């Protein structure tokens, strides 16, 4: 095949690997491999091309070659000059740099391609690994997560707990929960915070701000917002968002080192905004809950409309929670229409006049934030 390469002779230096001493030899390329003469009458060594290795992969720039043989560990053959290296690259092509790189990289290239393909599939099929993990979380863990989140969200703010107000809130919550047909007990907390907002947090918790109660014109509007946030809770959206954020934070921590990214879950949730689909799902729940609770959905629609159209409301609403629900989606009108269409059933006010007044002044009495996670 490469007959022109055979029977060339090269000056080389051979070591047997027992000591660091070396000796000069004339080696020859043959069909069977590299032929290395031995001292005196000893038979020459033959190193077949298939079992060779070189200290560095052979390239076109090679000016010499340091060859080893896998069946004679420690022994080395150093052949100066580019001629031998070129000939060896032809006779033992597995030793070239491009061959070695391809051998090392090809399994990973396939792995990377498969990873990308799986990623694209998951994305196209609308699968959400974070949602799957959130679904697998035990209730205990979700409750602990929820307590943590509520705690960090209410950090430095008072929790409202006027007796009459709490009673009204309990009644409203109970009426909505009974309409979920899910058996999950929601815990709703009002915090003294001027921002107009509401958050669903893990473990069936909802946080309402006093600013939202102030901005609402009647109990039906609050009922609508609560039902919407319960919808997020039923779909485990807060858990999913946190799992995703924690996954990212964990990945970031692994890559960048350092820690502390995970220490403020509440802040993370404040920054989360749900996707268009998630908001749609929460709306659907809200519509169903309101209908089964015999509360008019008009209040929800009115509040929704007012908040999305009031100048500067996006700023007052903040980034996450309701703010996200209103600011990040171009199809607000479409969603509003859906809520309005859902009406047409007999309904009673969510709360009586007196109860509504009590709920609005729930922040007359408040507790320091530390016990927020345990308040009913």
């Amino acid at each position, binding site marked *: 095949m490469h007959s022109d390469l055979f029977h060339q002779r090269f*000056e*080389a*230096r051979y*070591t*047997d*690997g*027992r*000591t*660091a*001493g*070396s*000796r*000069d*030899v004339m080696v020859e390329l043959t069909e069977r491999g590299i032929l290395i003469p031995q*001292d005196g009458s000893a038979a020459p060594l033959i190193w077949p091309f298939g079992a060779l290795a070189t*200290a*560095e*992969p052979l*390239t*076109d*720039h090679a*000016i*010499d070659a*340091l060859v*080893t043989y896998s069946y004679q560990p*420690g*022994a*080395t053959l*150093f052949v*100066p*000059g580019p001629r031998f290296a070129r000939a060896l690259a032809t006779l033992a092509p597995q030793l070239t*740099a491009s061959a*070695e*790189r391809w051998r*090392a*990289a090809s399994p*990973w*290239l396939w*792995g*990377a391609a498969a*990873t990308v393909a799986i990623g694209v599939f998951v994305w196209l099929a609308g699968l959400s690994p974070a949602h799957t993990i959130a679904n697998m979380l035990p209730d205990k863990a979700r409750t*602990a*997560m929820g307590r*943590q989140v509520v*705690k*960090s969200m209410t950090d430095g703010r008072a929790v409202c707990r006027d007796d009459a107000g709490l009673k009204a809130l309990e009644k409203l919550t109970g009426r909505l929960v009974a309409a979920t047909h899910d058996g999950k007990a929601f815990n709703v907390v009002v915090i003294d915070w001027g921002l107009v907002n509401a958050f669903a947090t893990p473990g069936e918790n909802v946080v309402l701000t006093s600013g939202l109660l102030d901005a609402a014109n009647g109990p039906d509007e609050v009922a609508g917002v609560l039902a919407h946030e319960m919808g997020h809770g039923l779909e485990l959206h807060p858990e999913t968002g946190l799992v995703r954020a*924690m996954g990212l934070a*964990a990945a970031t*921590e*692994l890559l960048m*080192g350092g*820690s502390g990214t*995970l*220490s*403020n*879950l509440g802040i993370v949730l404040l920054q989360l905004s749900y996707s268009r689909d998630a908001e749609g799902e929460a709306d659907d729940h809200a519509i169903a809950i309101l209908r089964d609770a015999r509360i008019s959905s008009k209040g929800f629609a009115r509040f929704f409309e007012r908040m999305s159209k009031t100048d500067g409301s996006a700023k007052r609403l903040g980034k996450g929670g309701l703010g996200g629900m209103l600011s990040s989606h171009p199809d607000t009108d479409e969603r509003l229409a859906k809520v309005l269409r859902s009406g047409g059933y007999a309904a009673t006010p969510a709360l009586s006049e007196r109860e509504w007044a009590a709920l609005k002044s729930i922040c007359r009495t408040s507790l320091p934030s530390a016990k927020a996670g345990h308040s009913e």
Partner: protein
Amino acid sequence: MQTSATGPAVHHPPRGERLDLTWLKPIGMIGLSVSNFIYRILTLGIYDFWARTEVRKRLWSAIRLNGEPLAYTGTGKELFLGFLIVFGVVLLPILIVSVAAILIFGPNSLTANLIQAAIYIAVFMLVGVAIYRAQRYRLLRTNWRGIRGNLQGSSTPYAMTYFLTLFLIPLTLGWIVPWRATKLQSMITNNVRFGSMPFAFRGNSGLLYGPYAVLWFGILVLFIVASAISGMVIGSIQGDLGPGLEPPDDVKQLYGLTILGVFALAYLFYLFMSAWYRARTINHFAQCTHFDSASFNGTATGIGLLWIDITNLAILIAGSLVVVALLSAIAALIFMIVPALVPATAMSPAEIQAYAAAMAAPVLVFIGALSFTLLLPVTQARSMGYLIDHLALEGSVDVNKIAQSTADPMATGEGLAQAFDIDAF
């Protein structure tokens, strides 16, 4: 440089022979850099271990003793397995424990903070272990004429010395640094073997204290002078204006720039002084390192090291700029082509472009972040070349006396060192 095998075969060499240490500048490092970069991107980063290995093979081969190359026999697979082991045994447990501590005890609680502190201390204790084990791995994978290097002994004394003296640096206002560096260097050197023959570290830190005093007081003087000049600049404007008056904006800007310039100059001086001290340390350690009847002689200079550092930085930036320019061109191309490919009925062109941008952004960020490492192999070759060019082995070595090492070659690579990013080459 190149010792070709001429002359009669030497069967009984003299008792000792002079070993000529030279650097044979490796060719094709830019090509290797580009190839490694592309493979790293296409394998989502995993190829890094193999890329690193090929760079080492080239660098080791460029180091010649009597014209014969050193050989690096490590593999990418070993580095990868080392990383996996460290990931599973060290990094993952640390992450799980710290996350669990936060979830159980709450953020910023005393218990969680104590656990975090304990983790930090454990990590600092592991740094010494990592350095020692990384050195051992590299020596075990370094051959010359088929004879392996080795680093004997346990890493524990080294790690403890490293850890305990670390806390003494601020307590002694830095004056322990020369002693500490010498102690740590001698702990390694005295355990290095080439085959059966040991290296020895003979010397102490005394000779380093002169240069260190120059560095220490130099930094102090530099800081005082720079502050004084800045003070004078501010004083002179305020003096001209009279008390309580604000100078005009352009004057403020000019003086701001002057102060910035003064501190930049001071920083440059600092870089030079620290490079000078580093050169003195390298040369001192070389002189203390003995092997058979030979010892090393270092001739590195501060200006030489500083030049290598600054030009290396420029090379890395240039490489990054090339990648970023290429990326921008590709991004522009995607922007222009994509709307033409998708049927107009499905989405508006603006929506499609936004979509394409959202899809391409993470890829471009990933490559952009890697771009700084494009020409890393070139800079590594320059750094190592400078060191070898300024290092000589003086005296003689009886190579026939050096027998193969009987040490057990470590199976996996230096993952721990890599995890803490204390990896020079």
